[in-house]
């Protein structure tokens, strides 16, 4: 009886182990296949950017011959230099404004007491519900009246601070113990100094996440640059507008188009590789909050 049980158990364990190995091999095969599906388009684009135009019509992964002429053309002939400069400028300015104003506002809503605070905070949350498609026409009409179409100030003005960022900063400030501020107050620090010298440095993790997400959002933004700069002077094009234009005008220049796409993606890839956990935790916390 006992021996039988032991024998049964012995034959049972290897079978399970074998099943486990099969299962693992199967998983790795599936995941490798899927990963290929995610890598191949990018690799194919990268290699095409080093092809000659006739060679781009061949479905091959190795350029024959290798050339940097596609890169050279978009850099010298199609002004990608300017587009990159514009995109970096807008992304940096918008991100800095969002950290400062979102931080300042978030701190006040988290800590300072003033009449009407709850009501104003409701207004902040309410703005999350107003979609871009609804405010598109009125904002365009307003900026036209103020002569802010076709230059960067209009774009920066409507993106100075978002409710999401302010809310995000407020939630973080709420988690910081009050001891720090009380100590600062005893040392005679005023409200702004407390915010700037104590609270903002303590909120560094939140700021890092915000920097990355906002920079990526502005860099990738296509809708508002199209509305505000799309009809006018290419000197104001962002990288996304410039790439779209290259597509529309020269849709068969695959090496140039592939090089342009790589440029539009590369900075975000670099930031992503360096700060993955901020992206991923940002998405998940936004999801949990709903």
């Amino acid at each position, binding site marked *: 009886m006992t021996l039988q049980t032991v024998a049964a158990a012995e034959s049972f364990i290897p079978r399970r182990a074998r099943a486990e190995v099969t299962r693992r091999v199967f998983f790795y095969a599936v995941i490798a296949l899927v990963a290929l599906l995610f890598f191949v388009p990018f690799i194919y684009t990268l290699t095409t950017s080093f092809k000659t135009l006739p060679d781009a019509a061949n479905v091959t992964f190795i350029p024959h011959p290798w050339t940097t002429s596609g890169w050279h053309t978009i850099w010298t002939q199609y002004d990608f230099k300017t587009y990159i400069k514009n995109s970096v400028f807008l992304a940096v300015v918008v991100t800095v404004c969002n950290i400062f104003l979102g931080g300042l506002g978030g701190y006040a809503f988290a800590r300072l007491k003033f009449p009407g605070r709850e009501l104003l905070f409701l207004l902040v949350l309410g703005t999350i519900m107003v979609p871009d498609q609804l405010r598109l026409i009125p904002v365009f009409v307003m900026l036209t009246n103020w002569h802010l179409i076709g230059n960067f100030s209009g774009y920066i003005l409507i993106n100075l601070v978002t409710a999401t960022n302010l809310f995000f900063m407020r939630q973080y400030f709420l988690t910081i113990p009050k001891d720090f501020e009380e100590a600062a107050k005893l040392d005679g620090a005023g409200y702004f100094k407390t915010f700037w010298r104590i609270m903002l440095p303590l909120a560094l993790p939140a700021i890092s996440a915000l920097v990355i997400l906002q920079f990526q959002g502005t860099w990738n933004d296509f809708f508002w640059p199209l509305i505000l700069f799309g009809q006018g002077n290419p000197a104001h094009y962002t990288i996304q507008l410039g790439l779209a234009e290259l597509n529309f005008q020269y849709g068969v220049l695959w090496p140039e188009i592939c090089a342009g*796409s790589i440029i539009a993606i590369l900075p975000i890839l670099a930031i992503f590789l360096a700060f993955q956990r901020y992206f991923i935790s940002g998405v998940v916390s936004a999801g949990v909050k709903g």
Partner: protein
Amino acid sequence: MATASHVVSQPRSSMLGARIREAGWGYGFVVVPIVVFGLFFVYPFGYALYISFFHWGILGKQSGGAGTFNYAKVIHDPVFHTAVKNVLEYTVGVVPLTMALGLSLALVINQKIHGRNFFRSAFYFPSIASSVAITTIALYIFNANGLFNHIIGSRTPWFQNAPTVMWAIVGLNSWTSAGTAMLYYLAALQSIPTDVYEAAAVDNTGAWRTFWKITFPLLRPAHFFILVVFGIGALKLFDQAFIVSNGLGGPNYSTYTPVFYIYRTAFTTFDFGLAASAGVVLFVIIFALTLVQRLTVGRQEAS
């Protein structure tokens, strides 16, 4: 203790002064954000409604109200119907496909495998890459002589062909956003208590059965959340439709979406009144969906 007696001994006027000072700084800190939100969110909300009741062209408001003219025009416009039909087809295609892909990826990543962080990042990356660049790459890979047709042995110009273009965008965007769905599902999977699975293992339930009888139903809040978030996102489709059609919505209106309709009405025919009313109609639809989500999630949390 010393500080407490110090505060108590202060005259009342100075305490009032401190409160006024705090309130003053509070208002000072929030004034710029509040002005920005008021000017570019709250005011435009009302202004959009206002514009929608006028004949409003490139030179601004024309004299005399339009009443509900713009709304009647939007609702009876065959182009708007096509736009709504296109985006509904797209939504019905892309949302389940993204969810299925996202859940499959999450289940794979959730196993104890080597390099799971690497794979997780690889699958997520398309979600944060530029939509213009991703669409451009797709145009290259799916063109008549491109890589995809080479593999399957076809010559279909997937993105330049009216019957296939929306489905090509469905394929493209479910590939792009599957990584985001995967992250939501991963978070949900990791919140399922392990003793549920231990019980299933004791009962010798197979993996397939465990998934359908236990895991899948327990993921219901995640299913619902992703359904609504991706559903709303799908109804706002614009960038990809714009890029693949060279900003024209063709061929034969097959890439018109409601947002694209708003864009063209405003910036090609310069009918701001009509565009604003289309914006209001789209907002009402999206707002109703958001309410459904909030109410249902609220009820789930209460129960």
